[in-house]
Every structure is written in C-alpha cells, then in structure tokens.
C-alpha cells in the first residue's frame, strides 16, 4: 500500500466524520428546546394537571429557570418554575422540590398562589415501599391537607398536617419537601417576576 493510499484513507474518513459530526451538532441544537419541552411535558405535566386549576395557558412552555443554590461541586442548581396564567395574569406558580424519604428522595410538585396561599401539592417521584409509603401519593386525602393553607403555616407533621399512620417516614418526607419548597419560594419570590 502506498503512502498516497494511506493519506487518502485518513483524509476521507476524517472529512466524512467531521461533516457528519457537524451535521449532528446542528440537528441537536435545533431540536434541543423541543426535547426539553417534551421531557417536561411527559414527566411533569401529570402532576401539574393535578394541582393547577382554571388556567388558560400552557404552563410547560411558560416556565422559567432560576438558580436556587449550589451542589457539592459548586455548580449552580436551577429550579424550574411553571406559571399558570389566566388572561395573561399569573394565578399560580408551580415548582418541584424534594426531600429524603424511606428509600431515596420523594419529589413533590407544589403550587403557590401569588397571595401566598398553597394551591396544591402532588407527589411526583418516589421509590417508597409499595402499599405503605406509596400511600402518600395514592391517598388523595393526605396531599389535600396542604390545600388552602397560608405559606406561613407550620407544615410539620402533627402541627397542621396529619401523617398517614404506618407511613410516617414518607409523610415526613412530603412535609419536609413542602417546607423546603416554601423556604425556596420565599427566598426567590422577588426573582419570579409577576
């Protein structure tokens, strides 16, 4: 094999790979927004639908990311806030928080009205013991306890909220998630812009 052949092979393979790579980068950039939208829509929308009422926009596209903290490596952590609007007026803001439960973190989607009352709480992700800890998600009366309370209320178990008997750890996780959510909301309220 002559040197010429070898160089030709290298050149052709490099050019083909580079062009393909560049093309893929373009496709990726042009679909990135739509993919994030679809992911949020399929994963978060069911919980949003549960707790948001009376809105006429699409909260999944009316979303805003706000840096709310830093992780262990010092990277910014952003929380996504979903705006439910009616006739252009923000009526509820929903966002997701989490707290450690019996097995892994329990994710909670909570919705807050601008006047500072709780519109609703829904459990999104959990890996608690089936039939025991999962009741915090399955039993609607548990999450219903949060509805309509002012954010200043004490959301600890035993105070304003009654835990599910037998699922104390999971109930505490939901209550902790809500408490940290309230804290987060109060802290970043000015950045939400409504």
């Amino acid at each position: 094999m002559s040197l010429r052949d070898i160089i030709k092979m290298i050149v052709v393979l490099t050019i083909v790979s580079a062009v393909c790579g560049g093309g893929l980068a373009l496709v990726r950039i042009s679909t990135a927004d739509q993919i994030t939208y679809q992911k949020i829509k399929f994963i978060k929308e069911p919980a949003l639908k549960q707790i948001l009422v009376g809105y006429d926009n699409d909260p999944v596209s009316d979303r805003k990311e706000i840096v709310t903290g830093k992780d262990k490596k010092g990277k910014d952590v952003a929380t996504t806030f979903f705006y439910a609007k009616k006739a252009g007026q923000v009526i509820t803001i929903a966002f997701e928080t989490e707290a450690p439960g019996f097995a892994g973190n329990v994710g909670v989607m909570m919705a807050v009205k601008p006047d500072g009352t709780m519109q609703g709480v829904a459990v999104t992700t959990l890996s608690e013991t089936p039939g025991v800890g999962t009741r915090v998600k399955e039993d609607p009366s548990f999450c219903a306890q949060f509805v309509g309370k002012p954010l200043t209320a004490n959301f600890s178990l035993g105070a304003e909220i009654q835990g599910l008997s037998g699922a104390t750890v999971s109930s505490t996780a939901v209550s902790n998630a809500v408490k940290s959510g309230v804290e987060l909301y109060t802290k970043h309220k000015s950045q939400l812009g409504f």
Partner: protein
Amino acid sequence: MAARIVKEFTKGLWKEIAPFRFVLGLCSVLAVTTDVKNGLGLGCAVIFVTTMSNVLVSALRKIIPDKVRIAVFIVIIATGVVIVELTMQAYFYSLFLVLGIWIPLIVVNCLVLGRAEAFARKEGVMLSLADGVGMGLGFTISLVVVATIREILGKGTWFGLPVMWEGYPGFEFMIRPVGAFVCLGLLLGIMNVISARGRRKRK
C-alpha cells in the same frame, strides 16, 4: 432507466423483502412488533436511514477508499440514526419512550449496512435511492404484517382500536417473544409456498 428504477424499488416489496427472504434485521422485527404503532414507527425510522445511507454511500462511492469503506458506511448510518433519534425525541416522545433502545440499534441492523455494501456501493444515486426506499418500505411492511397478526390475536386490537368481539380474552402467547418466532416462522413458510407455486406455474 425508469424501468430499472421501478424494478429496484419494487424488488424490496416482495421478491427481496428483507426480513422474510434474507432473514435480515430480525431482532427488531421480533422485538417491537407487539403492536402495530411501534412496528410502523420503527419502520419509518428504518426507511429514512436506509434511504439516507444509500444515497450518501452511492454519491461518495468513487471517493471512498475500499479499505475503509465499512467505517465510512457506519459513520453515515450512525449519523442517520442519531438524526432519527433526536427528531423522534423532539416530536414523538411517547413513541420514543416505547421504542427506546431499538432506535439506536438500527445502526447495527444488517439490512442497512447490507444495502450499502451490496447495492449502493456499486450503483448510481437514483437507483440507490429507489433501492433504499423500496427496501425500507419492505421492512416496514414486514413489521406491520407481523405486528398486525400479533396485536390482533394477542390483544384483540389493531392500532389500539378494538377489532375482536367484546370480551375477547387476548391470546397472550402472541405478545410474548415466543409468539413472535412462531408468527415469523409461519409467515416465512407461507411466503415460500406462494413463491414455489408461482415458479411451478411459470414452468
């Protein structure tokens, strides 16, 4: 030329329909055909990939050195597959969730590489285009046929619509992987019988 294009296109639909005649690309035929929607989704993805890879391979056939041709083919095919994957994720997310790993696995579907190696490498762009679309369409037809049989017998629905009588219990065997093998085997047999009859008549 036009006759040749038609010939290359239609051969993929019956005479050389890939999964049944060459038993190519079987993993996906067996795996995703539990319902028609998935079969059709994967079929469309394969049509796009075979067409794209055939056209590009054929257009580049004079400059691709023989020794690295397989590497170049794979790069081209993988590009097509990733385009499909991203597009599907962006616009058909529920289908993407169901098909999951089978989309990236199109890269190693021997049908696609087989067409590049056996056809597009030697023929012109128009012929390769016809061949790619035809072969992809044949593959889709096979998927839909297998999926139709499995979904109707297994779940009593077609494309999610109920077609059997009310209270049809569902022949669960057909939804299981075994059902896919049995179904494919029977189809292969039927096709061979039909072809053998055709040959005898011509004699």
